[in-house]
């Protein structure tokens, strides 16, 4: 892509900033939606306010960090098996 050509509208910094704002607004609305729905908890804690939101966020952060830590031991260059 030549430098003079305008970037695709979706990857312009302005759009990306807008997407972040929009995304955060949507997340806030989703959390607030808990005020309006009737939870059907199976085990108690999953009926508490904002459970699905924080549980999704925290477990995902945990999985990424766990994967990162495991990668320290198990990652190899992708040419590792090339001499077979």
């Amino acid at each position, binding site marked *: 892509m030549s430098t003079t050509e305008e970037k695709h509208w979706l990857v312009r910094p302005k759009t990306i900033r807008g997407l972040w704002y929009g995304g955060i607004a949507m997340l806030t609305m989703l959390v607030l939606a*808990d005020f309006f729905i009737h939870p059907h908890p199976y085990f108690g804690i999953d009926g508490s306010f904002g459970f699905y939101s924080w*549980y999704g966020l925290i477990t*995902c952060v945990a999985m990424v960090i766990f994967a990162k830590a495991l990668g320290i031991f198990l990652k190899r260059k992708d040419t590792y098996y090339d001499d077979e």
Partner: protein
Amino acid sequence: MTMNDFPPALVLLLGAFLLPLAGKNIRPLLILGLPLVTLGLVWNLPDGSFANLSMFNYQLNFIHSDSLSRLFATVFAIMTFAGGLFALKQKSVMEQVAVFAYAGSAIGAVFAGDLISLFIFWEIMAVASTMIVLSVGSKICNQVSMRYFQVHMLGGSLLLVGILMHIHATGSTAFSVMEPNSLGTILILMGFLINVAAPPLSAWLSDAYSEASFSGTVFLSAFTTKTAVYVLLRGFPGTEILIFIGVFMIFYGIIYALLENDMRRILAYSIVNQVGFMVTGIGIGTEMAMNGVAAHAFAHIIYKALLLMSAGSVLYMTGKRKCTDLGGLFQSMPITTICGIIGALAISSFPFTSGFISKSMISQSAADAELVVVWFFLLAASAGVFLHAGIKFPWFVFFQKDSGLRPPDPPWNMKLAMIFFSALCIGIGVWPEILYSKLPYPVTYVPYTVTHVVNMLQLLMFSGFAFFLLLPLMKRTLTITLDFDWLYRRVFPTALQNTFTVIWKIDTAIRQAFFVKFNQALTFISQSYQGPSKLLSRTYPAGSMVMWVAVILATYLLLSFIH
């Protein structure tokens, strides 16, 4: 013999032999037509057992037709049709033949009512799927296919021994519900588990599926693991250990996919993840769980094939497969991008996609069975699916940085196949009752409640939020992640090689010591017998030799007279 006694599997199995004979113009008609013929036969089958055969006093039953077997055969036939459409421009006839044999034997295995015919189709599947990888023809694919084949031969051998012991113990060849309480049934279970990519032998899947051709992987993703899910559903529902195996597979898939750089390996690991949901459901074993597993297998085949079609399109158009080489493709491949995203939403069980209405049944069954820990694991895993497949795959392939690549969308047939499967992903999600009515048990589950939809959106959106928050940690590197196959690809060969190096060294040392001693002995002998008077070094005149020969001949003559 009636029409019902004709096994639907034979259409594709016999069709496989027709493909190389048919000309360039007829072959596409067969590739698209025969799966539809199969579909027609499957839908026309009533409940019951057909195509019974007696062989060496054993009862073979090639068609055991009920709602479960017809459901799997249906999705296999649809898959063969759409995959065939996608692969229409595949130049390798060998791959097309192998695909037909593979799909046909998978349908055969699904209808098998007895263990012997199940084993026959099981092994044809193993050979045919190996041929798909082999048909690429590169050196790497030869090695990969041999590794793949060996793992499946191990699984097949376990299965065969298990089946023989089971038949010997029970006197029946029937394939019915079993409990892993005898050596025979345990071996059968192990054979099934190898094909489901259960630990520890799960590396065959990501190893082979990332090396097959752009179209071959689409088929590979559909049949082997899902046939194994089917036989587990039939043979071992409610087996508790499957819950643990399934949960392990779910997180193994997520973690390894998070670390992966090759786009099709990401999707391969997510197959293990999704099949893990099904294995967990089979372990739970309630009617709701069984329905959920069957529905999820159906939905999974379609959205996973769709994802691999979009990855296959990228590979076909760019020849590149690593996330580090890709990015920014949405600008020139809009249809591939949109279809890939639909597949990604479906695998993440986004509301109004097929994954939403199927996976939630498995989670619900865990809650109903009061499996607290399992339920929380499944919920975390649902968030993790969005993380590793739902966002990671489309983000790194189609968005991310601009790789500068501007390939157009793939040819019409590949686009059409992707659009067809995208439509199915959404259609099943919007009208779940069509799929629900085909499940083995009556469905009372209601997927679309406001609470469920909102909760799922919260879970997924915050998972996505975590992805973009941690984007620096997700940066792709030119690495692979060691798996259990490290043992048989690296450790054992190295250990063997070292052992032999030592053996050869010892062997050389012994030989050398022997030669030294032998030489010394020779020197000693030659020295002790040297000199004109010694026995071995005396010289004899030629005349005396001639005389002695004459004496021997004369004696011989004399003896012959005496005789």
